[in-house]
């Protein structure tokens, strides 16, 4: 598959612009001035490091957080956290949240008239392993309507929050599923200027990790900003 390199990602860059009028909520929230790019010498080199004690043993498995099993299609979502040189980023916290199989969030403000599932909260977390790998077991989320425009629906997605090694590597994004017919209609997905860069948010079906008689697998690698290749101990702060 063809891939956009970051250098060739077009004038719009990798990330969406703050102001993107098709996504109406940006109109009053996007800053009017272009953020000042911090000189490398002033960017923060440190960031929070969370230990294994932050994570419960079942936090990675969203299908086993309640007494019964949730309804929906059980899936494995896995991949690696890498830096921009391709090196794995070990030991960083990943948090996920998502709608249930019916497209409803376990959130008080979600008024979509689809059923809540008493056996599904939809929040997960884990730490990346020594090789940057992570793995979640969950339920494939449903599409859901939102009020952005007439008959607006979000493609099925899982929200990801990732800490790098430095606070400047922090990334919050959304993972999508291959072949979703809603991609062309979703302003949030299409806010990323380069169509090839958008593809990076679409997980790939992974037959090798799919478990027979149990669950389909999807792969989603996450590449954070910058390099963590140089030796670097957050505990050992600049004196």
């Amino acid at each position, binding site marked *: 598959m063809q891939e956009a390199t970051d250098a060739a990602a077009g004038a719009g860059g990798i990330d969406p612009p703050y102001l993107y009028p098709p996504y109406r909520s940006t109109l009053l929230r996007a800053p009017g001035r272009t953020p000042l790019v911090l000189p490398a010498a002033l960017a923060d080199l440190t960031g929070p490091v*969370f230990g294994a004690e932050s994570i419960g043993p079942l936090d990675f498995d969203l299908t086993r957080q309640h007494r019964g099993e949730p309804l929906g299609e059980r899936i494995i979502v896995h991949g690696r956290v890498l830096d921009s040189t391709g090196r794995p980023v070990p030991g960083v916290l990943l948090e996920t*949240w998502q709608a249930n199989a019916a497209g409803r969030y376990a959130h008080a403000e979600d008024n979509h008239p689809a059923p809540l599932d008493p056996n599904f909260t939809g*929040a997960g977390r884990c730490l990346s392993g020594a090789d940057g790998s992570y793995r979640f077991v969950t339920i494939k989320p449903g599409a859901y309507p939102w009020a952005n425009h007439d008959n607006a629906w979000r493609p099925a997605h899982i929200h990801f929050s990732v800490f790098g090694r430095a606070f400047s590597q922090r990334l919050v*994004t959304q993972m999508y599923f291959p072949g979703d017919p809603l991609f062309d209609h979703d302003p949030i997905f299409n806010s990323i200027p380069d169509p090839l860069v958008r593809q990076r948010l679409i997980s790939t079906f992974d037959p090798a990790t799919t478990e027979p008689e149990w669950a389909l697998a999807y792969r989603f690698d996450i*590449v954070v900003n910058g390099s963590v290749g140089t030796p670097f101990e957050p505990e050992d702060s600049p004196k």
Partner: protein
Amino acid sequence: MSTGAAGATVPGRTPSQTIGPFFGFALPSETGPLVVDASAPGALWLRGQVLDGAGEPVPDGLVETWQADASGRHAASRRLDQDGPSFRGFGRCATNATGRYAIRTVKPGPVRRPDGMRQAPHIEVLFFARGLLKQLLTRIYFADEPAANAGDPLLAMLDPQARTTLMATPNQDGYRFDIRLQGDHETAFFDV
């Protein structure tokens, strides 16, 4: 890069997407805003309000902070939710119905970088919300540190009005720092 970097030697960075309106059941926690225990020497409350371009409160955002301790050292934050060591460095607080947040912390000391450069006491701040397709990065400095601020290399790059937007002001139990996303008094934001 999620599609596999066939032939590419350097992976492409993953683009940002909005945190959306529904993170509240997953990311915030009761202890998230507590960077220090109440008993920590110098414990104070950093409070503020987040306003949009119409001057309306932003009731569905998430503030995250990262800072050095009172002696200018960055500590590892070993625990996400539970009270851990007395200084965690990292704070996280969702804004409430009136757009307000509160982080219990200490005033950081000046940070000296490996190259010897000295920065005025400051707190890194990330802000996430529905309608922000990418997080906003800013920094809190302290209005009652004029000497240190005068020598800070980042503040020196800003015009006086932008500098003013980064100043937390002392109040009865700590400091106040408001974030204005848009408009005449828009907070100075940074990119990396």
